[in-house]
């Protein structure tokens, strides 16, 4: 395989893993639900998207055929992640989940 391609794949993969891990750390460590919501929905989506991309390039390079499935996964991922986040945020607001003191804004007062 072309070493540049190989490097691209490796970089995409590792950075994807890093973003995913960052998202998970955020989910685990941030103070309240409203802050935690940002970590996985943004970082993890990018991270897994990046891993998907690396898989796509890898298989296109090894088999020479179009790897449509990964494309589909990415479409789904990027289309749906904001919706899940939105739905969850609304649910939390509806349930009046407590927020930490240093989290700014009072969404449900608006």
């Amino acid at each position: 395989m072309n070493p540049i391609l190989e490097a691209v794949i490796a970089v995409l993969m590792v950075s994807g893993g890093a973003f995913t891990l960052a998202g998970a750390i955020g989910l685990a460590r941030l103070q309240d639900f409203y802050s935690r919501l940002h970590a996985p929905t943004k970082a993890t989506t990018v991270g897994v998207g990046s891993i998907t991309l690396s898989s796509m390039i890898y298989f296109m390079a090894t088999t020479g055929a179009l790897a449509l499935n990964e494309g589909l996964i990415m479409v789904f991922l990027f289309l749906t992640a904001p919706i899940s986040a939105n739905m969850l945020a609304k649910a939390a607001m509806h349930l009046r989940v407590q927020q930490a003191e240093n989290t700014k804004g009072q969404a449900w007062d608006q």
Partner: protein
Amino acid sequence: MTLALVVLLPFLGAIVAPLFAQAGRTAIAIASSLPPIVALAALYPHWSTLAAGGVLVQTHEWLPAIGLSLSFRLDGLSLLFALLILVIGVLIILYARYYLKKHENVGKFYSLLLLFMGSMLGIVLSSNLLLMLIFWELTSVVSFLLISFWNYKQDARRGARMALAVTGGGGLALLAGVLLLGQIVGSYELDDVLAAADTIKASSLYPVALTLVLLGAFTKSAQFPFHFWLPHAMQAPTPVSAYLHSATMVKAGIFLMARLYPALAGTELWFYMVSFTGMATLLIGAYTALFKHDLKGLLAHSTVSHLGLITLLFGMGTKLAAIAAVFHVINHATFKASLFMAAGIIDHETGTRDMRRINGLWQFMPHTATLAMVAAASMAGVPLLNGFLSKEMFFAESLNLNLPGIWAYLPPVVATLAGVFAVAYSARFIHDVFFNGKPVDLPIYPPHEPPRYMKIPVEILVFACVMVGVFPTFAIGPLLYAAAEATLAGPVPEYHLTIVHGFNLPLLMSFLAFFLGLLMYTQRQRFFDFHARFREIDEKAVFEAAVSRVVEWARRFIEVLENGSLQRYVLLLLLATLAVTIVPITSLGFNVGSLGISPIDLPTTVGSLILIGCALGAAAMHRERLYALILLSVVGLMVALTFARFSAPDLAMTQLSVEVVTIVLLMLALYYLPSWTPREASLFRRWRDAIIALVAGSGMFLITLAMLTRPLDSISRYFLENSVEGGGGSNVVNVILVDFRGFDTLGEITVLAIAALGIYAMLRETKLTAPPTDGQGHPWSTDAHPTILKQISRPLLPLALMVSAFIFLRGHNMPGGGFIAGLITAVAIILQYIASGMTWSHQRMPFNLQTPVALGLFIATATGLASFAFGYPFLTSTFSHIHWPVVGDFELASAMAFDIGVYLTVVGATLMILASLGRLTNQSEVKPGAY
């Protein structure tokens, strides 16, 4: 082929005949009489072969693996019975035309009658014991329907139930007996069984097999102590009684004894069991018959007594006795059928069957009276009638038994005594009904002769009685000889069918019986008074009490065992499993096989830890339902990942799709349940259950460990090798589902469809009140369909459908297939339900949800049936390749059409179940009939 056809004809008739019900009773009677007449014509050409001692056996394979074949046999014995069944059947059909009233359900009647005829023919013509058993059970079932034909009468229903319970129970015993015989002989074919007579009698299983077979015969033929069902079956319409209790149903047991006579008879055990049962039945039946005031009751008990006589003759074990038994079968059938018909005419014309009211009918219906009197005289054994001949033979044989000492007197004394009673009740039938003063308070007065044609069957039968009685050799000689030859399966000893054998002891016994019987009749009032001292036992009440007692026991037993607690069932199941497996598992121990333990890696370790932890958590947290549900979702996800990790992509995909449907389903149910439940089990119970679960789980672990660490040569090798070649697909899982085990899949989707329809039907009218708030007291949001979700879900639908189509199409070669594709489609539509509501979604669906289910089942079945058209067995598949640009090579297999059926059923059923649950509260929002 002809014999199978003869058996099949009445069954075909049973389907066709009811179509003529609208055209009136005459039309349907003619239509119903055609099958037996054609069957008779089909049997006729074989007579010459049989008369020369030949046997006709026609065999078609059916289920060779269990020894069941469609083999039919025609010899003298089966011909004799077939003739009785068919000829008397035709006469009954004619008779019933006039017996049944216009408003009655003649279609049902004739259909059942023909079904019964076919089943009886099946019994007598089968050459395979298992095949015969099938017909045997059919007669039990159809006779139940016939006896309860007037199902608005409680007595009829009870009598039918009793008959079914007794004969059905006997059928079970017979099944066991036949299986044992097959075990001993190694074949269920009659030829083999009869040829293996010595092996059977020498076998240590012989006493058990004989007892079981005889139980079947005795229950069917109403032998003591099982005789009680027969009189209660008299609640049937008279044509049914005439048919079932003269020539057919009760003779099935007799036939069985005759059929297996060469194989089973000739031992001491046979002698004692059969002859003493016969003797008891003979006496009890004859005695009881005298005291019955009901005309049909008298005939019923007389039938019991005559069946006992035949059984006794078979039990004696001599060849001449067996011949006499076969002869009496013919004679009894003719005179008893005509007597039942005459009784039916009397009932029909007077409106009652009570002999205390029916008197002096001679002056109202001399024609019927003459016929009935001749038949009754034959029943009593008056010379020059057929009953006399076989009774003489019976008396003669009863003298020839070599019983020790004083026992030698028992059979002749019993025979004579029964003869006395027979004469007495026959005299009563003649004198009490047709003479003896004037009728008392008849519902229909004055009675008169029945329609002309109603008497024809009686006339024919009475004519036969006289013919056989006067010219026995001419009238019945050859047929009897052929039947005797077949019964004995060997040389027939010399016997004479002459009216008088000279003045000898049997004749003396006849005369004695005759005069004592008449004397007894004249003194009947004393006997009635004597009999009245004993409390009458109502067998029906006893039987019903026994039945309800058994039901009560069963109910209590079930209450103890099955109290509705699922935990308890799991506990019992686990304990039972442990009890069986604990010893082998402990001796197995921690057993690692030759393959060793595979190395572990980080993701697998993390995954399995999560899997274990979340499973435990779900159990521990089950009282907080939403939390438990989320933990369950994690378990599901981890299981799917495990499937993927260990190379089962199909399973992973199925698990993922099923998972989300389950979660949605659970949420639909949780909506109506409290979100939190109190602690219900005691501490002791929780620890006890935890320990049992731990032990069971450890056992499972040890077994799995031992299994997976060894090379396993399972059936999967066959599937792997044959999947491409035989099923045209390289995805073995899918090929198994739609091809190798397509029949299973068809069954499964049928069950799925039934379940979905059942849920739909049960919830259709159910309305539940929605809880006003969630568990913490938050009121529900008013935003039912959030805009963002709605707007994004819509473009997702075609995308998901595309994925579904893709997974469906490549399913035969790569992971996927109809089931997974169906679930994906269903889930995509469920998303629309969630986002935009059911009303919105259903308005955009041009069909209701039952349609895909029905269509799917239809397509799957039709694909299976289509292979018949090409001469292959059900669900044989064929395939070819087509190349599809861009997408690639696709398999075009007939299994794909089957898979479409699976797909449609899964989509329809899944949606129907979820929609039914979702609709529970929002009745007003959904338009009726919207789905």
